[in-house]
């Protein structure tokens, strides 16, 4: 995991108030949990304890088995072996209702909220007997208001979830658990979608909950947060417990080593060599969609990586859509390689030399039920290399697929394997290979390492830096501030459809970036 460590006043000192003393009763005990999915062993004989009032961090890179373990605890999955005990009593496996009744609440990584329903409806769902003749909205509203106030989780019960910001939705997820009188709270990567300021607010809320007697399991792969909020850290690696430490007795380096099992050297970043202006946006706005662009200025130069920081929902999708060709500019000037982007479409973008790594590899980047071979030619199949007079040259396509598999280290059974069988990292490498093979002049990398393990992350970063070295202009959109800070030569912050001014590497501190992400500072005053 790549680390960024400037001293930072926003990051509090580790160890919050609360339990963790040897005399606090054990509220949760997982014993030797094992779970297999086909040939993959996601959890291998994992045991852990949680004491009352403790905050335990479950640390591990993507794919280490953290979410699977918690899904077993909450009842979404059933373990193949092992038991779970909550408050001294065994917990019925595979039954979220049993977990909820036992006082276990979960804030899922991907929110389990119905967009077209209100906050009240989402929270009260399933809390009353199913065949009761009436739903008591009044008492539900009272309880929600009470809980909101006690823990600083302000939200309007009658608003549609679709209209809430990501931070507000997370509050609803937490309220869902508190409404059901959870005494153990599991949070799965809660800060992945929050600005630094919202993260601090979340941590403050967690401290209040602990003071109220709750016990917390906090899943994360971010070392600084783990150090900031937890009493104890359990590190998972490859489905097994790699180590357990009291937070006060360890440091980031040791945890990183436990997480990855080896010394990972981040790829070296050579100084940027600025090339030609390859793309420019002047006062560009987009139409439609929930979070459009509102008058954005941006320039991309060859040989540089421009990173767009900010949490989702501020216009990143529109910006990515613009570069991908799926969205058009409704106002302003959008130029690529010197000429205006008219008759814009994904095929036009490809023709102009834009390589794209989309945000969602499963829904957009790849067609799950088609083979690796069929996926890899999806952008180029119309070129003379692969088709003549409407007929496809499958032999040429296969040769190309084999070449990409080789060059981009894609582990798969072969070009004919259905792409759905590849791991996330290998699928992403294939998509990367498809995008980079033609050596595009402009590259869009949208959340390129989301959900990937450390090895795959390093690989992707290495290839992006390679493309940068040969003169490509890269637009990197990422929620991971560390990634942005490591890779970007230029950084801008996206907030409410507007882009801040661009700063050079090292120019702005994390605190300053956090302010911009929260919508304070110059971005809010931009014309």
């Amino acid at each position, binding site marked *: 995991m790549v680390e960024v460590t400037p001293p930072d006043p926003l990051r509090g000192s580790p160890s919050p108030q609360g339990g963790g003393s040897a005399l606090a009763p054990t509220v949760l005990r997982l014993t030797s949990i094992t779970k297999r*999915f*086909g040939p993959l062993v996601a959890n291998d004989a994992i045991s852990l304890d949680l004491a009352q009032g403790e905050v335990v961090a479950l640390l591990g890179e993507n794919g280490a088995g953290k979410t699977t373990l918690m899904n077993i605890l909450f009842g979404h999955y*059933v373990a*193949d072996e092992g038991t779970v005990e909550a408050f001294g009593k065994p917990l019925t496996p*595979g039954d979220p209702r049993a977990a909820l009744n036992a006082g276990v609440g979960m804030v899922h990584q991907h929110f389990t909220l119905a967009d077209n329903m209100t906050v009240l409806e989402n929270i009260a769902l399933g809390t009353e007997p199913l065949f009761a003749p009436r739903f008591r909205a009044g008492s539900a509203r009272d309880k929600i208001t009470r809980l909101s106030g006690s823990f600083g989780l302000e939200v309007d019960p009658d608003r549609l979830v679709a209209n809430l910001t990501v931070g507000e939705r997370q509050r609803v997820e937490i309220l869902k658990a508190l409404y059901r009188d959870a005494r153990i709270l599991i949070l799965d990567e809660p800060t992945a979608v929050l600005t630094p300021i919202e993260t601090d607010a979340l941590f403050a809320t967690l401290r209040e909950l602990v003071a109220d007697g709750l016990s917390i399991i906090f899943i994360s792969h971010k070392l600084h947060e783990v150090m900031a909020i937890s009493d104890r850290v359990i590190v998972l690696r490859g489905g097994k417990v790699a180590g357990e430490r009291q937070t006060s007795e360890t440091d980031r380096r040791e945890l990183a080593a436990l997480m990855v099992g080896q010394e990972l050297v981040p790829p070296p970043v050579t100084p940027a060599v600025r090339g030609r202006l390859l793309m420019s946006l002047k006062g560009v706005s987009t139409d439609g969609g929930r979070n459009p662009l509102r008058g954005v200025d941006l320039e991309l130069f060859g040989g540089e990586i421009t990173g767009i920081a900010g949490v989702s929902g501020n216009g990143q999708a529109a910006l990515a859509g613009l570069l*991908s*060709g*799926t969205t058009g500019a409704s106002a302003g000037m959008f130029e690529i390689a010197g000429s205006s982007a008219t008759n814009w*479409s*994904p*095929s036009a*973008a*490809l023709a102009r030399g834009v390589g*794209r790594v*989309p945000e969602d590899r499963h*829904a*957009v*980047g*790849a*067609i*799950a*039920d*088609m083979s690796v071979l*069929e996926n890899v030619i*999806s*952008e180029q*199949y*119309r070129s003379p290399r692969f*088709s003549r007079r*409407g*007929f*496809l040259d*499958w032999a040429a396509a296969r040769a190309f697929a084999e070449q990409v598999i080789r060059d981009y280290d894609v582990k798969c*059974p072969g070009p004919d*394997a259905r792409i*759905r*069988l590849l791991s996330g990292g290998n699928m992403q490498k294939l998509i990367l290979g498809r995008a980079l093979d033609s050596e595009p002049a402009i590259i869009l990398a949208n959340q390129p390492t989301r959900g990937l393990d450390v090895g795959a992350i390093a690989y992707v970063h290495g290839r992006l830096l390679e493309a940068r070295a040969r003169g490509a202009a890269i637009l990197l959109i990422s929620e991971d501030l560390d990634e942005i800070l490591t890779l970007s030569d230029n950084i801008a912050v996206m907030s409410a459809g507007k882009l801040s001014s661009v700063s050079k590497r090292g120019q702005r501190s994390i605190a300053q970036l956090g302010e911009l992400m929260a919508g304070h500072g110059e971005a809010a005053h931009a014309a």
Partner: protein
Amino acid sequence: MRLEPKPAPSLTATLAYPVGALVVTFFIASLLVLAAGANPLSVFGLVLKGAAGSQFALVETLTRATPLIFTGLAVAVAFRARLWNIGAEAQLYAGAVMTVVLGTGALPLPAPILLPLIAISAALAGALMLLGPAILKTRFGVDEVVTTLLLNFVMILFVSMLLEGVLKDPMGLGWPKSQSLIAEARLPRIIGNRRLHYGFVLAIACAVAVWIIMKKTALGYEMRAVGHNAEAARFAGMKVNTILIKTALLSGGLAALAGFSEVAGLKGNLTLDLSPGFGYTGIVVAMLAMLNPLGVVIAAIFVAGIFVGADAMSRSAGVPSYIANVMVATALLTMVTAIMLTRFRVRWR
């Protein structure tokens, strides 16, 4: 309960499950036969005999299979792209109407020119029939299931109107029928005194053509990509709407050829009962064939055999011939389940 994708379906599984589906179908049919007071084994024997027990039976089966190959292909092509064409019935009648309009003497041309001309015109008529719902889908986001279904009813009424009006046979007695086709517009018989006609050959040719399109052309690849994941296809640069329109034109055209084939090859004129649900049965044929064009030929012959055999059986054994429809519907549901089971393992935990 969970479904886990299997990495590579084993050969035994790929064969065993579909066979299992057919076994279940026959089992359920047996229950119905018992309810009718007859002996399942003798009834199925009669069905088999009626379907393939003599040269006459076999030829009948192939004749009955011809329109089913066309509609099966039409549905297979459309469903591959996830275009839910449930309107093959209307497209079939569009082709039939066009055949009658052009083939009853309006064009005094020799057969080698007239027949292809009528066939192409019929296909165009069917293509246009499905174009409407396809445009409604791509332009306005209207679900094509309901529009194609409702158009079936509209079309039948339209044909009824034509048969009592413009296309009416002035020398017809009793029920409405159209004028008869001139000799040059008739598809010749393959075997002298049997009903099998060259429509069957055309159907096979179409199956091969569709197979080539799906396997070897860029359009076939595009149709499959759009059917699997239209959003990813759009991102990759494919013009999804254009692909859907092309799919609709091809699918509608194929279904219309069923109408052309029945009128020009078998009946010689148009009546309201031209199609006893070929459009809907085409859906079953397509699914039994797992949307594979060559499989459609085999599935069509199989399904036709069941209908022809059941008709023959019903006359002697007294079991209502609707048992064929029940078997076909059961085969559809069991086959769809079987296909899923070859690809996924059911995990109870």
